[in-house]
């Protein structure tokens, strides 16, 4: 734990102590400014802020999750990204990466909450099971709901890392046996930012944190609470395979020639056209690749309910409530078939039941014809 009596060091001081040069520091600031889509002076603003602002205390909670968000974070492209939060200099409590454990760890959390009441940022990774009074996820003898409420009480802001915290992800998929609930449904009255994705991109996570540190407020959010800088465009619109889509050249199966040629993955279920994320631009693991680049369609991991919204490997509209294999086309075709059959029956019925009227018309018409 950092000393509590002295003034808290700034980010820059901490980084210098850890051996980063000013050059490294400036590179990091420039990169972040670019990711956040700031104007040219943005890098300087970030640098100034990190030089003068004491570090923001962070409590990082892990609930129903797989830690892929943390994994993604420590693989972001600049080493300072990992150091700035995941190292002990900033992170006051995180079950996964802190050295302390057991009572010591709980004590560290309590201390942070008391000392930095109203100042610390609460990061939540994972959803909260609300079923059976929350017994499905307990840490240190407390249920995750209680821990969440306790920690959120004095938090300046809450960051929901990943799809679990943002919308429940796989554990909230039907039938959601544990009652997994995203954070925004449990915490009211705090600024909440969602950073969905399974996991979110490391640089996106860093960008969100740097924005909060630099400007002291949340970045601009979209309608569902995601940072606009990273979630305002569809994966489809930044996809390098887009020309194949427009040309109508599609991969039919994963092992065909078209797949080898790198055609569009739309027909094997790519959900890029309905998914808002920055994958196509920022990519993953130091910008190495992203799902579509490695030959697998996007399955929309940053969208709400993506597990329940139809099949992953087909581009088909699923009809809610009719079972997994029923899709809109099947039901539509059945409806059309039933309609045609019904109309055929009606046509027969017409000829049987309306004979008098029809015969009268025909007779009258014949008569007129013969009268000519």
């Amino acid at each position, binding site marked *: 734990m950092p000393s509590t009596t002295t003034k808290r060091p700034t980010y820059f001081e901490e980084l210098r102590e850890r051996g980063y040069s000013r050059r490294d520091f400036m590179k990091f600031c420039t990169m972040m400014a670019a990711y956040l889509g700031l104007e040219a002076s943005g890098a300087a603003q970030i640098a100034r802020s990190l030089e003068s602002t004491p570090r923001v205390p962070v409590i990082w909670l892990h609930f129903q999750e797989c830690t892929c968000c943390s994994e993604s974070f420590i693989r972001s492209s600049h080493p300072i990204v990992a150091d700035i939060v995941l190292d002990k200099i900033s992170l006051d409590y995180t079950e996964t990466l802190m050295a302390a454990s057991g009572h010591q760890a709980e004590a560290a959390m309590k201390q942070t909450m008391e000392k930095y009441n109203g100042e610390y940022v609460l990061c939540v990774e994972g959803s909260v099971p609300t079923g059976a009074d929350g017994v499905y996820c307990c840490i240190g003898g407390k249920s995750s709901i209680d821990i969440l409420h306790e920690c959120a009480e004095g938090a300046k802001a809450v960051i929901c890392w990943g799809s679990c915290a943002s919308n429940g992800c796989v554990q909230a998929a039907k039938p959601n046996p544990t009652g997994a609930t995203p954070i925004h449904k449990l915490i009211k009255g705090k600024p909440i930012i969602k950073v969905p994705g399974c996991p979110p991109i490391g640089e996106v996570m860093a960008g969100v944190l740097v924005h909060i540190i630099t400007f002291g407020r949340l970045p601009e959010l979209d309608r569902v609470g995601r940072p606009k800088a990273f979630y305002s465009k569809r994966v489809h619109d930044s996809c390098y395979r887009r020309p194949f889509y*427009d040309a109508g050249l599609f991969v039919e199966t994963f092992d065909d020639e078209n797949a080898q040629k790198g055609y569009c993955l739309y*027909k094997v279920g790519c959900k890029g056209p309905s998914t808002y994320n920055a994958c196509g631009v920022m990519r993953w693991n130091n910008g190495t690749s992203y799902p579509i680049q490695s030959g697998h369609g996007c399955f929309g991991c940053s969208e709400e309910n993506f597990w329940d919204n139809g099949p992953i490997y087909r581009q088909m*509209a699923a009809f809610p409530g009719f079972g997994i294999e029923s899709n809109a086309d099947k039901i539509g075709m059945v409806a*059309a078939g039933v309609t045609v059959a019904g109309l055929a029956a009606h046509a027969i019925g017409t000829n049987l039941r309306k004979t008098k009227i029809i015969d009268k018309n025909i*007779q*009258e018409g014949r008569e007129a014809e013969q009268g000519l």
Partner: protein
Amino acid sequence: MKDVVSTRLRRVYVWELPVRVYHWLNVLAILALCVTGYLIGAPPAVQSNAEASHRYLFGTIRFIHFAAAYIFFFNFIFRIYWGFVGNKYADWKNFIPTNKAFFKDMWDVIRIDILLQKNKEHMAVGHNKLAGFIYFLTFIVFLVQCITGFALYADMSTWWFADMWVPVARLFGEDFNLRNWHHAAMWFFIVFAIIHVYLVFFHDYVEARGEASSMSGGWKFIEDDAWEEEKKEEAVFKRAKRSKQKRVAKTEK
């Protein structure tokens, strides 16, 4: 043979030119939208050696879909306008139940035309009330398609027009759900078209009043006595309306 008296027919101008133009534009737009829409949902497998930059097949299919959508929408807006200025058969009151007689007529149509009550025919110069009401339901589906469709299109559009639909569309959920609703509603149009065309044939066949041709020339041919009957009913309706207005005026005084 002797007892058949040749009836004299009266020519009634039912569907004015704007209504007919609306109808056929609508047919073309819906046809284009269904075909291209289905292809967008399930693109055909095309084998080609051409470079992607030399082809624009899917782009063209989508362009047709979007262009037809705009035609469909503004054509529909025009039809709503015509519901206020057109003749009595185009009036909006044909579509929305406003009184008891509307429901009575609907029930008559169900008995006579749908359940085929023996040797009776139902007289309707314009839309019968059941048809009118079902058109009203189709207008709602039109709206659902416009909301979901334009909201999906909004991200590709630089015009505020498409963006305008996004907030309403969120009632249906995120893009995933919008796509599903948009796709499922296509089947409504297909089923509607099948029934619609069948019923045109049905009315033409049973009633012999020129139902099918009415949408090209606008004319329907009504027997003289049926015309007199219809006129009386209209008069009763008008008188009732007038006396109601008088009563309202009196109470206001």
